[in-house]
């Protein structure tokens, strides 16, 4: 890869990801409204698209308040971590042949490492806020994300065994003769559920359960610091959706009448919609139900899936 191509990819990925995250705010509000028989924002600009602009301007001009009782350094540092870790995860995703920022040999591991880093932002943000609700949210977030991390990794191993590589480009290439969704459908479901829990999206938004914890770990955040958590969450959705597509739905593979990037974007979009649909339809489980579900059902299931995949791989 030439240096020019490299910088172009980095710039393009950054531009697309950040704009997608901003656009998702609008998309989510519109889709939620559609599924609740409402209109959602439809006044500002075509289809209410300028609401994104208005939201951004509002967030930027809000008072950037740090509570006097907060741990100031950590309080400022925490929202940056979530955005940075999610953005770093995007470096390993192959958007199209040759359009990938870092073609790591251990891409999958890097993704898992970065999504673990995301826990820091929640824990540090909740801790630095020096507020009981924030701390409760942070504790819940930490235990939820660490628990779901375990079998998120395990469910991915099935894909790694089948493709024989941690490199995401090679994983995509290994799906030429059939997407991994068919042989790895159990792994796919576990990964999807763990992914929702990792982004703490709505069925699993226990760290920020607004009916119990005000806003959970970001109760004390305002202005653009809150915006960072917000953007981080939407980028997390995009990340998990694109990881699902890359690992189980053949990434950029698709019939030749559309370019690979379009296929990738289309497939990712379907999963983003699924995330929003989940938010529109799912009730929030109780905290112990979440833990029980994770450790007693999904964890053994992912182990069994891993064992069976490995056994079949050995026998054939």
């Amino acid at each position: 890869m030439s240096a020019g191509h490299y910088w172009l990819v980095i710039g393009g990925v950054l531009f697309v990801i950040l704009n997608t995250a901003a656009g998702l705010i609008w998309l989510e509000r519109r889709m939620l409204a559609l599924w609740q028989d409402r209109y959602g924002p439809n006044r500002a600009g075509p289809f209410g698209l300028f609401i994104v602009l208005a939201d951004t301007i509002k967030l930027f001009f809000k008072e950037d308040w740090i509570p006097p009782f907060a741990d100031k350094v950590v309080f400022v540092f925490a929202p940056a971590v979530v955005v940075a870790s999610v953005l770093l995860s995007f470096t390993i995703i192959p958007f199209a042949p040759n359009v990938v920022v870092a073609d790591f040999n251990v891409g999958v591991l890097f993704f898992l490492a970065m999504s673990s880093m995301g826990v820091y932002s929640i824990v540090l943000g909740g801790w630095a806020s020096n507020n009981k609700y924030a701390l409760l949210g942070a504790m819940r977030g930490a235990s939820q994300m660490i628990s779901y991390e375990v079998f998120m990794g395990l469910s991915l191993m099935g894909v790694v065994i089948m493709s024989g590589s941690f490199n995401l480009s090679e994983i995509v290439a290994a799906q030429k003769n059939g997407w991994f969704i068919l042989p790895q459908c159990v792994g796919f479901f576990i990964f999807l559920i763990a992914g929702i829990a990792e982004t703490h999206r709505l069925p699993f938004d226990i760290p920020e359960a607004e009916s119990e914890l005000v806003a959970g770990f970001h109760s004390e955040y305002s202005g653009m610091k809150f915006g960072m958590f917000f953007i981080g969450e939407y980028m997390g959705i995009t990340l998990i959706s694109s990881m699902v597509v890359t690992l189980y739905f053949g990434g950029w593979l698709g019939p030749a009448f559309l370019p690979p990037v379009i296929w990738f974007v289309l497939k990712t979009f379907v999963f983003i919609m699924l995330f929003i649909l989940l938010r529109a339809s799912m009730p929030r489980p109780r905290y112990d139900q979440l833990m029980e579900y994770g450790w007693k059902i999904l964890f053994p299931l992912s182990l069994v899936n891993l064992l069976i995949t490995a056994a079949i791989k050995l026998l054939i």
Partner: protein
Amino acid sequence: MFSLLRSMWLVFLHMFHKRETYQYPEERAPLPARWRGRIALTRDPDGGERCVGCYLCAAACPVDCISLQATEDEHGRRYPEFFRINFSRCIFCGFCEEACPTYAIQLLPDFEMAEYNRQNLVYEKENLLINSEGKYPGYNYYRVAGMAIDGKAKGEAEHEEPPVDIKSLLP
């Protein structure tokens, strides 16, 4: 698990449902006829004021937002000298309408009363009095009441018999 998938599917189907929203400034929700909105003072079919200044509305008002002063004109008809409703206090409970013996004060189906200036929410009589009979067309208080005014002596109201001369013994 099945119920979760089923609820997701049902929510998804809402994509094809009709939306319930009224696009407000362009499209208005139909208000029921008995909607308790803007308070108005109505007139009788002859164009005279119905209000007789009995203070019952002001007494019934739980937030004391009505104030008025009754007076009498040269024909013997009572009317309010001033009639003031402070809509920044009004809770649109409709008690004034229930208390009114002459159907003068009425709550009409209109809620668009917002103002930028708080002082503009204090409505005087000229703001309240409307050129309409409101919800009770044809009702004329002085035509059915036994009270004597100029041009209508006692006993001349509708469904009213002439007064009996109690000093006379003749039937």
